[in-house]
């Protein structure tokens, strides 16, 4: 397990402009620079937020997937994706608002 590596990829995406540009333009090649298991790489590339969450990736860092619209994740599908694999919870009903739309710069 190299959840640390996934966390690091997402941390760098938010904090390093050049890294972020590469993540947008050539994500597959960027991922090769990190020690990821096949399962982890597949989860990232398919935008499987729920699976990444279950693996223990920090939610604050997962948020960058929708903020920067990586691997098909966006503000409209983020919540349903992070809940994938979870049992239904009535608290979901209170939290169905879409996640915040940020101002693109």
């Amino acid at each position, binding site marked *: 397990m190299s959840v640390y590596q996934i966390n690091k990829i997402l*941390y760098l995406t938010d904090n390093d402009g050049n890294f972020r540009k590469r993540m947008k333009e050539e994500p597959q090649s960027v991922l090769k620079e990190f020690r990821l298991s096949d399962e982890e790489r597949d989860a990232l590339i398919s935008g499987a937020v729920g699976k990444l969450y279950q693996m223990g990736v920090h939610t604050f860092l997962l948020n960058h997937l929708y903020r920067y619209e990586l691997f098909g994740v966006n503000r409209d599908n983020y919540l349903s994706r992070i809940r994938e694999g979870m049992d239904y919870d009535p608290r979901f009903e209170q*939290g169905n608002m879409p996640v915040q739309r940020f*101002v693109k710069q």
Partner: protein
Amino acid sequence: MAKLVLAAGVPHPPRLVYEMVQSPGKMRGEALMKQVREQVEKAEPDLIIEVDSDHFVNFFYNNLPAFCVGMAEEAEGPQETWCPMPRYRVRGHVPMAKALLRHGMNAKFDLAAAHELRLDHSLVVPLHFLNPSMELPVIPIYTNGFASPLPLATRCFALGGLLRRFIEAWEGKERVALIASGCFAMDVGGPLRGWTDTEWVETISRLLLQGKYQTLARRATEERINAAGNNSGELLNWITVTGAVGKTKPLFLEGDEGSGYAVWKFD
């Protein structure tokens, strides 16, 4: 000796800054921030000590202290490009931060120190409202509110006590405002986003209003905090501040569905 003239806590939703510009006068948070700001202005502080939890902007898992003092002469933020608000340059107070570090070491409180800082929205949003001209220098105190294992809330409370003793032992005559940045309980971008743990928020509000700060610190276990949503560790910043207020009860407190606003006055 310096003097603690005010303590306060406010949340730091970046959307509040943005939405206030879009529709001024309509947000509840705007009115509450104004209420806190008026008290800050009345207290006439010379300096702010802000207790905050970095959101993976200044710190990451490669090096993540439980507690850290910001020692930078100045720092800029918010650094997050997605954050819809003005960018600021915030001055520090290096001599006092250095003295705090030393004071902590001598009291067996081994704080980390950061001489360079990248400020995130959680540090800057409260200052945008409470120190809008950025005239007052700011000493950031970081607590690890997010990356498990969290420091014990009782330890945060003890840190608050250390801060109070340091302020009163400091050689200068500064009037100090101590500000907690963060919510009581909330989920932002976790699976429970939008849900509020009303029971926990009401418990926190009640214990704060009653001045039962140590009871709150004992009850705020990591398990209880995490059950209230992924952003709920910010309560540790509030608990740190309550460790500094002694027996004083809040002048006002508003739970605002988990956001949390309060002021303590000492004059």
